[in-house]
């Protein structure tokens, strides 16, 4: 469980004042003034799967989930990943996070090969009820990854980080509740807060809003955009919802069906900050959406029979 020397967590905090958050940390990009500015994407590559291949099982039962995936995620980028269901999106995220050892190829985080989990990445799962610990309060859940680990810098600091993260996701004052006393949307906010407090190099999200109702879902999409804008965090967001992928992302990577490869990478040149109604009625949004949809549908129809 040793963390390699790639400690510097590449979080670019733009100094946008957030209610209840004391902005007092050393930032790589100090104050890029305006609130409406396009999120600056750095040139540093923070995450890079190279010729990733994952085969489950052996011999005649072998299933090649991922054939060959290579792409690059730059600091501060919001990367959406879409693909037909069962194409290996979860498998990809697990490999990126180090949970799953790829059959061949490798994953670089800040230029260093990943060989275990705990490379300073964080993951938000779709199954929030199974990801939050039901015997811990909301606050204790957020603090959990910070306690008893190398990243910890004292009880006070841990508490402050948890407070900030909870405030950031709009969960002021629910810290003492148990997660299961909250609605699904709020539980997923807790999971996001936990990831934020951890200050990961990259935040990985596996269909995080797929089991929420439409209202909670669009609320959380906008929350995530706000967090991205304010923290400049690098986010890799897997979804099967193409609208969502385009609405959120700086770029959409479209995966093929199994055995999976990168089929296309679309730059989303839509202005930020985005808005559920304004952005989605832009002609460019519709074009991008249609293009991505076409790519995914084509994959579905050419899918080899199972």
């Amino acid at each position: 469980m040793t963390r390699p020397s790639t400690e510097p967590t590449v979080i670019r905090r733009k100094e946008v004042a957030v209610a209840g958050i004391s902005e007092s940390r050393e930032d790589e990009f100090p104050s890029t003034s305006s609130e409406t500015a396009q999120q600056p994407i750095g040139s540093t590559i923070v995450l890079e799967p190279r010729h990733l291949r994952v085969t489950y099982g052996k011999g005649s039962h072998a299933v090649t989930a991922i054939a060959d995936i290579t792409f690059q995620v730059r600091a501060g980028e919001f990367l959406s990943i879409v693909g037909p269901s069962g194409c290996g999106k979860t498998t990809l995220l697990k490999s990126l996070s180090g949970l799953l050892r790829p059959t061949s190829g490798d994953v670089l985080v800040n230029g260093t090969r990943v060989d275990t989990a705990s490379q300073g990445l964080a993951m938000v799962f779709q199954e929030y009820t199974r990801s939050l610990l039901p015997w811990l309060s909301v606050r204790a859940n957020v603090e959990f990854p910070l306690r008893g680990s190398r990243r910890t810098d004292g009880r006070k600091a841990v508490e402050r980080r948890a407070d900030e993260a909870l405030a950031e996701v709009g969960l002021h004052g629910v810290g003492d509740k148990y997660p299961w006393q909250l609605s699904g949307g709020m539980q997923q906010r807790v999971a996001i807060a936990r990831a934020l407090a951890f200050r990961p190099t990259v935040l990985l999200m596996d269909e995080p809003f797929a089991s929420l109702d439409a209202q909670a879902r669009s609320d959380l999409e906008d929350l995530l955009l706000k967090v991205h804008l304010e923290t400049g965090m690098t986010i890799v967001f897997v979804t099967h919802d193409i609208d969502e992928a385009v609405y959120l992302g700086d770029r959409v990577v479209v995966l093929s069906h199994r055995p999976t490869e990168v089929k296309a990478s679309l730059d989303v040149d839509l202005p930020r900050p985005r808005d559920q109604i304004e952005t989605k009625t832009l002609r460019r949004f519709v074009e991008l959406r249609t293009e991505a949809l076409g790519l995914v549908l084509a994959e579905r129809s050419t899918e080899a029979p199972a």
Partner: protein
Amino acid sequence: MRAKAGHLLTVLLLPVTLPVLWWVASSRSSTPYYPPLQEILRGFRAVWTREQLAGELVPSLVSLVVGFAVAVAVGVGGGVALGLSDRLRRDVRPLTEFLRAMPVVALIPIALVLLGPGMRMEIALIAFAACWPVLVSTADGVRAADEVMLDTARIFGVPPRRRLMHVVLPGAMPQVMAGARIAVAAAVGTMVVANMVASSAGLGYLVISAQQSFNVIETWAGLLMIGIVGSCMTSAVVLIERFVLRWHRRWRAQDVDT
């Protein structure tokens, strides 16, 4: 409120009505083997003098509590090991199945040979009998640890020890406690039997020697005390369970709701 009162009524129904029935049915009994409850209670107070409590009850309680504690420690420790390692579980399964199937009564002679009569032997037997339910259900609980929770902890770099203590074990706690509750019955039963056949003190010894000297009242009084000890022990475990799993009941309750 009304539902609560109704619940209270059903809970109290048996413990209240049965003694009342016993009291009424036995009140005019004249056979010496089946004395009126009134006399048994009077006898109970006479039998359980301070010296008797110290001489017979306390040794039994000590064996019981120590034996049970050892059982829980061994059961949880072994259960965690078996739950974590599929290989270990497969390899030791024949042995555990064999030992588990062994009636603890059958072990008394050999325990007497190895440990001699007395508290050490009693504790060993109680621990042996009571550890299996804890061991088996702990292993199940550990094995059922939620993969998503564990993956989450792994990604955040939570070290293995901390994952065990803070993710796996709390998650297995409902099963551990269920095993412990079953283990209480096994422990009390073993204590009484060990007392009866191989001790010169303790609750079981008191009952059997009273019976052998045709002291029916004292036999009943001893029996009553065994019942009291058993239910106190069960209540204690239930109280601990309520405390340890205070999150769990409400969590389950809201699961049922939705």
